[in-house]
């Protein structure tokens, strides 16, 4: 229903005379190119109605997917039609209508998939298919007239470099967090005194605002690099990658440790007793019984950290660490919202992907019936 309202009344695209001033909104039915706008609006409305009245979940999923794809394709085609010929400065950006329509169809699709009860593998395949469809639309050049792709064209090399840097920021903080956090979590599980202290300290660390944390990391690292020039030569500096990694690592510890503790605590004591009764030593018990049972909860912790770090790494751009946040802050500085989107949308897609993949892993680890 929301999709229908959005199609009818919310502006689908906005035409800006240049990159920095606000644009004039156009609804789909209201597009000057009526040969495109009206059929597209009708198609989207039909998909929405089909999804609402479909009895079988598969039909609903199909309607949702069709609607989302139509919105994607339609946005690109409508942008090309809307742009005045020869206007090099004018920009077409995506309006609230587009986001509402795509969001609504996405929800319909997700809801239908849950009803279909596909396994974790199916979910991963569908996630790949969804991102693949988006990438195919972009690669085909259908979106080239939209402002966000214009920004991409102007920043192509930098985009992939910063993307790689973003992944380094996320992975480089997650790995040490897991290496330290999981053993630490097990330690806290075994010793109640440690648990109280460690979790309290980590909770305090978690509450420090991210920009402050990144800033706080700069001064001690700069002093360290000044005191030990060898470190500075090796690349440990007060700005850039090192303070960002350190800050992200600190933020990652609490979810990992807390979920590890919870995971081990959730192992039924009767099972542990049975294993001991069977003659298993403590190491075998840990590896063979406790760890597999705690694993799903720990993986949930990893998912939380991964999604959190993907988003938080955007702030790292403020201290010169790069990543997609560079586009966000540059866009804010130039009030070019589509440059902000160029940084924000990949972050959202990465986070969505990470969540789906890790949920699937956790789902598999939860165990198929024996």
């Amino acid at each position: 229903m929301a999709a229908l309202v959005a199609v009818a009344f919310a502006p689908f695209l906005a035409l800006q005379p240049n990159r920095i001033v606000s644009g004039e909104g156009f609804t789909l039915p209201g597009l000057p190119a009526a040969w495109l706008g009206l059929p597209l609006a009708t198609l989207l409305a039909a998909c929405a109605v089909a999804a609402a009245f479909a009895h079988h979940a598969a039909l609903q999923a199909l309607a949702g997917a069709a609607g989302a794809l139509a919105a994607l394709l339609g946005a690109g085609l409508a942008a090309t039609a809307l742009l005045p010929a020869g206007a090099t400065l004018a920009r077409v950006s995506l309006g609230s209508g587009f986001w509402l329509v795509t969001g609504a169809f996405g929800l319909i699709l997700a809801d239908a998939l849950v009803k279909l009860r596909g396994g974790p593998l199916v979910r991963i395949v569908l996630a790949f298919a969804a991102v693949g469809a988006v990438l195919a639309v972009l690669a085909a050049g259908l979106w080239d007239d939209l402002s966000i792709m214009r920004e991409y064209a102007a920043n192509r090399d930098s985009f992939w470099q910063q993307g790689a840097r973003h992944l380094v920021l996320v992975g480089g903080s997650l790995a040490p967090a897991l290496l330290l956090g999981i053993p630490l979590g097990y330690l806290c599980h075994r010793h109640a005194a440690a648990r109280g202290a460690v979790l309290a300290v980590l909770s305090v660390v978690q509450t420090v605002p991210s920009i402050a944390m990144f800033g706080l990391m700069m001064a001690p690292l700069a002093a360290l690099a000044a005191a030990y020039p060898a470190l500075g030569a090796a690349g440990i500096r007060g700005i850039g990658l090192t303070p960002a990694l350190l800050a992200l690592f600190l933020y990652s510890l609490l979810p990992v440790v807390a979920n590890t503790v919870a995971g081990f605590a959730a192992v039924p004591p009767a099972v542990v007793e049975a294993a001991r009764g069977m003659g298993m030593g403590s190491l075998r018990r840990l590896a063979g019984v406790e760890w597999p049972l705690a694993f799903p909860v720990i993986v949930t912790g990893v998912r939380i950290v991964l999604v959190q770090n993907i988003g938080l790494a955007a702030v790292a751009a403020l201290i010169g660490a790069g990543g997609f946040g560079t586009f966000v802050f540059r866009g804010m500085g130039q009030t070019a919202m589509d440059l902000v989107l160029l940084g924000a949308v990949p972050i959202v897609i990465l986070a969505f992907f990470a969540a789906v993949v890790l949920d699937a892993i956790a789902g598999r680890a939860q165990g198929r019936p024996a």
Partner: protein
Amino acid sequence: MKKTVLAAIAAIAMATGAARADVVVASKIDTEGSLLGAMIRLVLQDNGIPVVDRVSLGATPVVRAAIRAGEIDIYPEYTGNAGFFYNMADNDVWKDAAKGYAEAKKRDYDAEKIVWLTPAPANNTWAIAVRGDVATAEKLATMSDFGAYVAKGGTVKLAASAEFVNSAAALPAFQKAYGFTLKADQLLTLAGGDTAATIKAAAEETDGTNAAMVYGTDGAIAEVGLIVMTDDKGVQPVYQPAPIIREAVLKQYPQIEELLEPVFSSLDLQTLQKLNGRIAVGGENAGAVAKDYLTSKGLLK
């Protein structure tokens, strides 16, 4: 134990480190910084100097801290900013272009062994720009005209940052010199120092805004039809962009000074406005605009 830990940290950091013989070229994260940083990088690379690109690094505090710590080697800075670095912002020496440059050069060399190279003849200082239609109708061209217009009760609403409104060196100084006072309802105070936001507000007449705080070389000014009111009484400090470089690196590559001199000398106010406009309004890539300009001037081989 300590050695193992340090070795481990160094090993991890090796992957992220950079070779120190290269010149690390940085800049601030704003439009003009990206443009000037790209120009420096292109000229150095074109002349066989190995360069590490850290352009668009961060805000002034980040970049300034980085050069003082030796983490970056060269970046474009403004002469007037030296007043803030050395806690003498109120001093009148900054109002004179030549004297301000000489003062900045002397202080930074004595304190930090940072050398200021040839500046550009453009003044990127705070100014007030008025909507074209208002300026034409009321015949406003200078700050004196603007002051008189406001004083006699003309309709005005100025979009500015909180810092501009409150800093004694900014709006209060203008008001004192040109004899006008803006009341609270004649001000639209924005949180950040972003002139893109103030220019946008004046262009769209948000809340009745018809004047905006701008920087002299902002690209969007001409594009959206605003007219800068010239500071005919010289109230504001002069902010000339100049490349500043660590002396150790300059000694290693002394040719950098001669290479950058023709580049910066050619950048006057109108040129910088035009180039900034291509980046901010046209959405072009800063590096591409820099390359295009340098090639057209024959400064790149």
